[in-house]
Structures are given as structure tokens and as C-alpha cells.
């Protein structure tokens, strides 16, 4: 096939490299003025690039060389981790970004592909988290298994909502999940079994006798204990990312798109609506639960206040900021949403407000997100 788009690899590589350098600079910056200057620089640079039509080349490059750039992005992530190898705080932050990305990718399968609304993302995240809190304390199950069980439980409890979600549409389905989010949080607060409002401690992860909560010493170099979690989370994200991409390209993704765009027409073409909605909802919740289970072990603590309706809206904000349906956008938006309030402590208290305002502005002026989903490509590596 002749490559009509003629997109070169280098714009993509350049952007990933610049973004990596920028992220390192932002994470390393300590003084508030420096951080704000960097943020303004970033916004101006992106706006200028958009103005000069440089972003189109980048876009083409990503469409044409997605797999190569994906590998390069992994290298970039490792480079960032290597730079901050002994900084607990930054490594924790990076791990958080990775796990939020995983959870939002799960949400993306539900909202972005199948169009099944889920405003209880944080609740399913919380189900995974509480699963690992309880199982790590009460049983000696291998922790990887615990993480899988966390995902399964989230999917299972989510299945209770399937009947109302399948029978309702749009706004009505949204209310079902909102009611569940509020129910879940209230339940955690009033019951005594799961520690009530105080929450519970979570034991750290161990794998094959290797305790994740110890710092790593290799030849005189000390690595932060969060490096363990970072590597595991990165592997998880890579797996989920590839799964999402494969799903989107496959006939399953095609079915889900048809379902989202027009349910009636999809049914006329013989698609089993209930089956695909169920599949998307269950798989999405499983991924969110897995991320939650691992995140609880990273943080070492679970409490009802971490799984509120507002937190669910944050996951939706990440999805919307990034561009619904685009996994790359999800990762970029997760970086923005997670890192910003931590680096700028002044805005941390206002984060829900700011994200809500950001999403409103987005909906009014750029509804397709920062990185809009591109037109479906039927063959990887081929222009659409």
C-alpha cells in the first residue's frame, strides 16, 4: 500500500521527547513561581503549535507510527522514573497517574465506546481498594490474585446495576449510577465492618517473597519503594492500553461504536444491544476495580472520603479533557489532572471546582477534548 499520508516518524518522537523533558522539569520544580511559569510556558507552547499547524504533523505521525511511538513513550516513562528514582513523592505521584489512567481507560470502554454512562467510577475503584484492604489483612492470598479479585468483585457488584442500566437510557442510566455512587459512600460511612468513616490500613504488596514496601538497593543506588509499584502499574497500564487499542480496532469496537451512535440502527443490523452493553460495563468495571485494588496497596490506606461522587466526576473529567475514546488523550489528561493540584498546593483545595469549570469550558468551546479521537483505522499503520 502506498502511504498517502506520508507522515514522518520524527514529529511524534520530538513531541514525546519534549513532553518528557517538560514533565521532568515540572515535577522537579519546587518554587511556586517556577511551576506557574512552566505551566504558562506549556500552555503558550501548545497554543502556538496549534496556531502554526504543527500539531497536524504530530497527529499524522501518531496515526501512522502508533506502535513505535507507544514503545518510545514507555521508554520515556522509564526515563522520568529513572530521573526521580529516589524521590518518594514524585514516584507516588507517577504511580497515581498510571493507575488513574488504567481506571479511566476502563471508563473509556464504557462511556467512550459503548456509550454506557457510569458516574460511579470512584465507587468501583473503591470496591477494588476495599477488597485488597480486607483480603490482605484477613487472608494470605497472593497479592496479584487479590488485585484480580478486586477487579472481579467490582465487576460483580457492578452487575447488580446491569438490570436498571440496560433497561434505561441516557439520562436515566446516569441517575442509576449516581444513586449507586452516593449509596456506596454512605454505606462505607455508616457500617462498622469496613472501618466506618476512619477507613482501614492496607498492607503493602509482596510478590514471591519480595516486599514492595522496602527501598531497593542496587550497587549503592537507592531506589524509592514506590519504584516497585511504578513498574507493576506501568506493566498494567501497558497491558490495558494495548487491550483498549486492540478492542477499538476489532469488530467488537466496531459493534460498540455502532451501539453508541445509534442503538436502534445497531439493533436493526442484528447487534445484540444488551450483550454488548453488558460486556462493556463489566469489562470497564473490572479494569477500574483492578486499578483500585493496586492503588490501595500503593497508598496503604482506604477511607470513604476517597471514593465520593466528586471523585467519580474526576475520572469523567479526565476522560472528557483527554478526548473521549482516545487512550493517548486519557494518559495526557491523567497527568494534568493528577499532577497539577499536587504541584500547586494552593489549588489543591479547589481542585473539584477547577476541574468542573475546566470541563464546562471544554464542553462549550472544544467538546471533543484536548486530543480528539481520530477516525477509525481498519488496519493498524494505515491511514484512515
Amino acid at each position, binding site marked *: 500500500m502506498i502511504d498517502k499520508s506520508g507522515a514522518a516518524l520524527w514529529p511524534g518522537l520530538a513531541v514525546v521527547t519534549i513532553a518528557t523533558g517538560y514533565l521532568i522539569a515540572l515535577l522537579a520544580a519546587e518554587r511556586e513561581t517556577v511551576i506557574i511559569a512552566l505551566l504558562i510556558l506549556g500552555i503558550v507552547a501548545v497554543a502556538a503549535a496549534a496556531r502554526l499547524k504543527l500539531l497536524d504533523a504530530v497527529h499524522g505521525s501518531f496515526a501512522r507510527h502508533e506502535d513505535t511511538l507507544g514503545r518510545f513513550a514507555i521508554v520515556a516513562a522509564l526515563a522520568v522514573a529513572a530521573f526521580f528514582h529516589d524521590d518518594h513523592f514524585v514516584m507516588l505521584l507517577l504511580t497515581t497517574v498510571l493507575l488513574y489512567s488504567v481506571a479511566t481507560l476502563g471508563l473509556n470502554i464504557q*462511556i467512550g465506546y459503548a*456509550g454506557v*454512562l457510569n*458516574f460511579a467510577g470512584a465507587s468501583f475503584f473503591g470496591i477494588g481498594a476495599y477488597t485488597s484492604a480486607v483480603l490482605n489483612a484477613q487472608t494470605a492470598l497472593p497479592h496479584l490474585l487479590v488485585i484480580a479479585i478486586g477487579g472481579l468483585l467490582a465487576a460483580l457488584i457492578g452487575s447488580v*446495576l446491569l*438490570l*436498571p442500566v440496560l*433497561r*434505561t*437510557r*441516557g*439520562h*436515566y442510566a*446516569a*441517575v*442509576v449510577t*449516581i*444513586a*449507586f455512587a*452516593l*449509596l456506596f459512600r*454512605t*454505606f462505607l460511612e*455508616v457500617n462498622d465492618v469496613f472501618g466506618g468513616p476512619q477507613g482501614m490500613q492496607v498492607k503493602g504488596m509482596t510478590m514471591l517473597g519480595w516486599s514492595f514496601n522496602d527501598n531497593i538497593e542496587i550497587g549503592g543506588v537507592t531506589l524509592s519503594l514506590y519504584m516497585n509499584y511504578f513498574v507493576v502499574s506501568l506493566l498494567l497500564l501497558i497491558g490495558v492500553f494495548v487491550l483498549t487499542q486492540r478492542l477499538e480496532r476489532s469488530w467488537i469496537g466496531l459493534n460498540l461504536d455502532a451501539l453508541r451512535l*445509534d442503538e*436502534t*440502527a445497531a439493533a*436493526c443490523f442484528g447487534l445484540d444491544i444488551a450483550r454488548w452493553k453488558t460486556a462493556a460495563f463489566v469489562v470497564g468495571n473490572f479494569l477500574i476495580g483492578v486499578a483500585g485494588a493496586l492503588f490501595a496497596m500503593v497508598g496503604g490506606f482506604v477511607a470513604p472520603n476517597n471514593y465520593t*461522587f*466528586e471523585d467519580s*466526576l474526576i475520572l*469523567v*473529567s479526565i476522560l*472528557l479533557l483527554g478526548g473521549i475514546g482516545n487512550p493517548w488523550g486519557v494518559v495526557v489528561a491523567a497527568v494534568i489532572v493528577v499532577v497539577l493540584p499536587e504541584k500547586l498546593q494552593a489549588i489543591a*483545595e*479547589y481542585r*473539584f*471546582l477547577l476541574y*468542573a*469549570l475546566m*470541563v*464546562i469550558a471544554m*464542553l*462549550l468551546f472544544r*467538546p471533543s477534548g484536548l486530543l480528539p479521537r481520530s477516525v477509525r483505522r481498519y488496519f493498524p499503520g494505515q491511514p484512515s
Partner: protein
Amino acid sequence: MIVELLAQYVMNGLMLGMMYALVAVGFTLFFGVLDVIQFSHGDVLTVGAFTALAAFVGLHTLGLGSRWLDLVVIVLAATLAMALLGMVIARYFIMPLRAAPALNTLLITLMLGTVLREAVRLFYPEGANPKPFPALLPRDAVALGAFNLRLDNVLMLAAGAGVIVGLQFVLSRTRLGLAIRAVAQDEETARTMGINFTAIVLITFAIGSAMAAFAGVMNGLYYNEINFGIGLYLGVVGFSAAIIGGLGSVYGAILGGFLFAGLQTVGAVLLPFASAYKDVFAFAVVIAIMAWRPTGLIREKISERV
């Protein structure tokens, strides 16, 4: 003893039902004219309640006011301010997205709700904590056997009923009501008949939001406490109530409100664990109702056009 307890439950159920009905009517009105669910409706209620509280504090620092003047001023301040807020929301956030996918409208109202809720929590002095709400109504009680019929409850119920009857009168007997009904039935035909669509939508949002503010003040007077989360709760419950009755029907919304309150009260009486898990129970009922009758007891007429 049993009878008094029962009377107490009935009174409580009626109060809850009135508040739910007032909120549910708003959802129904908005759905009627614009075919959208205004998810920030509950948070408009919160802002209304806090506006009333601020007005009260303001009156007191000025050293003005008797009990009844206070009451009139805070109700007016809350309803007028929320009517304005409702119009702003409709004009600048919901109407511009009419051509966009339904998901966008839903998200923007959800996020607006978050903005309002967070704004109250962050910017109202100590807004994160529950605030005491002044008891402005007379606390006298009439003893009926061992049951004390409290005057303030009776007054609130009467006022709520008055608002609903007033709305019904406007909708069924005035030109404005006729225009609202026309827009709800068929927007394009209404336009060709010379109805100013935008104006009618804005007025409807003003009416609905003012009613939410009224419910917010009522909530404050009844519990003598408000917090920034009440709106989210009342919004979800009010929406479910509107759905039980079938969206788009005012009577349905009122019926749904009282039905939901009844269910909740009966649940609290019959289920021993329900008092601690009161809210959990309420939300479980919401989910169960949606599973049972997704478009309400009076089914919404859905026609699919391909």
C-alpha cells in the same frame, strides 16, 4: 402510644414528600420545555438555602427584623436569586448545547452542580461544616392526645401546598401557562404560533429554580440545619420522584414525591436496620425503581424514529 408514633411518622412523611414534590416538579418542568435533565437542580436548592441563611445573617448584622419580616425577606431573597441563577444556567449553559449530543448536556449540568456545591463549600464562611438554620416559625404545638401537632410543620405544609396549587393555576389558567404547555408539547409549532421560545424556557427555569429554593428554605426550617450536600441528595431523590410519576407530568411529579417519601417512611418503620442505613435505603429504592419502571409508573410515550 402506637397512634401517636404513627401520626409522627405520617407528619414526617408529609414534610419529606412536600420537599421531594417541590424538587420533582422542577425536573418535570425543565424536561417538558427543553427535553433535558437539569442535574444541577439539587445544587441550585443548596445555593438557595445558603442564600436564605446569608440573608438572615445580613438582616441580623443590620439589626433589623422581626421574625415574620425575616421570614419574608429570606424566602424572597432565596427564590428571586435562584430564579435568576436558573435563567443564567438555562441561557448560557444548556441552550448553547442544544445541538450537541445528549451526553454533553448531561455532563455540563452535572459539572455545574459540582461548581455550585464546591463554591458553597469553599466560599461560604465555614461552608464545609453543617450550618445551623434559624427557627423562624412559631414552635407552638397543639396537643392531640399524646401527639403534638407542631404549628411550624403545619405552616410549612400549607405553604408548600400553596406553591404547588399556585403553579398549577399558572400552568392551567394563564396565557403564560398555555405558552409553557405549548412549548413542552411541540417546540416548532409553538414558535410558529408566535411564542417567544427563549423567553418561555427562561421563565420556566426561573419558576422551577425558585421552587427548588423554596424547598431548600423549607428543608432548613424543618431540620434547623443545612449543609452543602443536601442538594445532591434532594436532587437525586427528587429526580427519582419525577421519574416515578413519569417525567413531563406535574401531577406525576407531586405523586412521585409523596410516594417516595411514603416508601422511605414505611421502610424506616418496618426495617430495623433502616434507621442507621436511612440514606443507603433511599438510594437502593431509587435504583430498584429504575430497574422496575425505567420510565415511570405512568409510562413515557417513546417513539423511535430511524
